């Protein structure tokens, strides 16, 4: 249960391969997916805890809520510094937070990857969907169920940005250096290929 995991992070001082921003959202499913990929994750709720991880996942959830809590707990600058040096992967709301411009004054994104995003670009929950699609990373290919939940879209991507997956001709997963983004939720699928890819970044 999530209870025990949190206790663990506050009492030991080990350095973890990976942490998950746990202010709000589906950090629990990322924890499970990482475990399946053989990696124990640290849940991150404070700036201090960032010092104990080598890479970070910003999960899905509500970007307006995360944005608020990041500011209240003075995590904006530490997160920005972290993302300049270390691997960060944003899924769904996490993609919005990492983009340059989200076109919405309710969220101030970090601008760590040269893409623009639009929140809830497919519409309300009734338009959420999933679709199986073949994804190829590091020479490995798998048909993965791409789950889009009130998902954002990438509306512009700069020259330095590598598009890693498309759906109906639109970019849904991209990377620039140490920053990875996906509009869908790999943690909701059975495959751990993308989690394994991120662990090697």
């Amino acid at each position, binding site marked *: 249960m999530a209870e025990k995991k949190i206790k663990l992070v506050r009492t030991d001082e080990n350095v973890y391969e990976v942490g998950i921003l746990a202010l*709000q959202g589906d950090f629990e499913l990322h924890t499970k997916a990482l475990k399946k990929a053989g990696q124990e994750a640290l849940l991150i709720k404070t700036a201090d805890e960032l010092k104990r991880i080598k890479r970070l996942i910003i999960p*899905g959830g509500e970007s307006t*809520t995360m944005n608020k809590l990041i500011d209240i707990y003075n995590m904006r600058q530490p997160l920005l510094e972290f993302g300049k040096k270390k691997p960060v992967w944003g899924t769904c709301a996490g993609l919005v937070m990492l983009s340059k411009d989200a076109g919405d004054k309710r969220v101030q994104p970090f601008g760590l990857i040269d893409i623009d995003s639009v929140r809830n670009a497919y519409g309300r*929950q009734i338009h959420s969907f*999933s679709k199986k699609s073949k994804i190829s990373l590091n020479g490995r290919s798998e048909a993965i169920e791409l789950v889009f*939940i009130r998902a954002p879209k990438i509306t512009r991507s700069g020259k330095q940005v590598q598009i890693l997956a498309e759906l109906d001709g639109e970019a849904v997963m991209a990377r620039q250096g140490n920053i990875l983004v996906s509009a869908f939720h790999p943690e909701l699928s059975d495959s751990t290929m993308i989690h394994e890819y991120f662990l090697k970044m």
Partner: protein
Amino acid sequence: MNNSDNYKIKVGLAEMLKGGVIMDVTTPDQAKIAEDSGAVAVMALEKVPADIRKEGGVARMAAIEVIERIKEVVSIPVMAKVRIGHFAEAQMLEAMEVDFIDESEVLTPADDKYHIDKWNFKVPFVCGCRNLGEALRRISEGAAMIRTKGEAGSGNIIEAVRHMRMVMGHIRSLQNMSPEELKSEAREMEVDLEIVQKTAELGKLLVPNFAAGGIATPADASLMMQLGAESVFVGSGIFKSEDPAVRAKAIVQATTHYKDPKVLIEVSRHLAGAMKGLDIGKIPEDELLQIR
């Protein structure tokens, strides 16, 4: 998409709301305050439960205009309530593209035998429960999220605590049962054995389990999270208090940092009066919302 893909998407939205606060709102202004305070979703209502309780009469789905205006002003998911069993109200909310439907005992029930068959809908449902049997029956009917019933509009946490303890305690006892004991449990709760086995295996409900009913302070939110809730609904507790915006923000922070009493102290400092609240024992039994 087949039914199981669709269910995954419905439960998926509930997963995204974890660690957050869902706030009852009755006007676009309140909805904006909720969003600005960090709510993960709002519940669009005509009256908060405390007023429904006070005014009596039949409580129904909110007016179309109220829901539409609230949908217009916020970017976070919008939920709305329907009466238990009232699938026509639910069909209307689905057609209005509300993000989540609460089949709620806070409204006057429309059917005393059947809950809505939630598998027929593409929009996800949340349902209340007082114990594990109710939770598993609602999940069997297709609910994508479960919440405690608590005693809505009372400002008193005792019923939500009781219901959360009933659910979590019962799951813990299932985990120590033999296969034939699980079979008998399934019969008693009137659900399939498979869902009982899976719940025992997982050690928690198969869908996110949130707390609702009577949460009025940051400490209440922390208490429910520590008892096993994965998010909290706050109904009358915010907009029936003297300082809705400050209190809303405080409860949001308490839900994220529920294990950190120092955060709870910080956010609870200088909070003006909480809603007054009711002694559950003094509510006449036929006015209790949770028994619906």
